[in-house]
């Protein structure tokens, strides 16, 4: 039979692996997509080389954000999560759920930011003179997309460091809390997948269209903000449900 410390440690290691693996999946895909479209743009407009390469690198750095959050969470799980507080089943489940939350939570923003960056590079190749406008819109859009990975980071950090402590006489309430924490992690992880991808799509279309019709920039950006805000709503619902599952039982 395993000791409770060993169970918590196994859960922390599993969580660390899940977190960083899912995150690198999407960040890798997103950055590759950006670089691919940037190369296509370079082929069309070799004179815009400097600006294109710069925008591509900036975009890849922003796309990496979610993966960096996941790296931080998995390092915390490996080195700092275990020795704090009680060592029950609920603690083990909370650490596993933190990994799930951050890992799944950075998938959507990774895909979304990559799409935005790719289409911004294409737009740059079409209209190199407008590179300030296009890169600015790209960065705003990617920041909006990464907002949902910040939700996931908040939930993961709370699951690692701030779960409430109880004195239990039996195992049953512990198991219920453990399942609720797993639910919270899955909720915010899967819940940010759609909004992250979708806000990236909105920002990508907006960047592309600013490249084609630079005069309509104000109108396009307004529509982008409204659309991205509405798309974010379901991520906020998920955040609320995750908080309720963690603290309102």
């Amino acid at each position, binding site marked *: 039979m395993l000791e409770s410390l060993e169970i918590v440690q196994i859960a922390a290691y599993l969580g660390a692996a899940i977190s960083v693996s899912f995150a690198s999946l999407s960040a890798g895909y997103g950055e590759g997509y950006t670089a691919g479209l940037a190369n296509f743009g370079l082929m069309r407009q070799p004179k815009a080389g400097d600006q294109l390469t710069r925008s591509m690198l900036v975009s890849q750095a922003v796309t990496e954000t979610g993966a960096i959050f996941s790296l931080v969470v998995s390092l915390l799980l490996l080195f700092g999560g275990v020795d704090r507080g009680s060592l029950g089943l609920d603690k083990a489940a909370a650490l596993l759920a933190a990994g799930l939350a951050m890992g799944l939570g950075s998938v959507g923003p990774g895909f979304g930011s990559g799409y935005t960056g790719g289409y911004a590079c294409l737009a740059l190749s079409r209209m190199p003179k407008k590179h300030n406008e296009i890169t600015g819109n790209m960065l705003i859009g990617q920041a909006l997309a990464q907002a949902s990975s910040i939700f996931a980071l908040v939930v993961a950090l709370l699951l690692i460091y701030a779960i409430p402590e109880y004195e239990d006489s039996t195992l049953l309430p512990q198991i219920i809390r453990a*399942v609720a924490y797993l639910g919270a992690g899955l909720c915010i992880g899967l819940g940010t997948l*759609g909004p992250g991808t979708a806000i990236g799509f*909105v920002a990508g279309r907006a960047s592309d269209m600013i490249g084609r019709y630079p005069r309509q920039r104000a109108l396009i950006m307004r529509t*982008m903000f409204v*659309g991205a805000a*509405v798309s974010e*709503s379901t991520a906020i619902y998920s955040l609320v449900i995750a908080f309720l599952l963690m603290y309102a039982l």
Partner: protein
Amino acid sequence: MEGFEFIAKAAAFLGAGICMGIGALGPGIGQGFVAGKACEGIARSPENSALLTRTMLVGQAVSESTGIYSLVIALLLIFST
């Protein structure tokens, strides 16, 4: 707490998380697609921007509905079991 009641409660909490998580996936992607295409449409024909924004918001509100269903079911699973 009885055995069955206990299993039901644990399942309800896990179910609430999965329900809201997967339930947010579809509306999120759908609303983003609507907004992306609206940006495209407004760029191509800016004179119709009021009409396009209205259609975008109505379309997003309709795709939001399933997200709100998930939210209601998740809240019911948390508080009424």
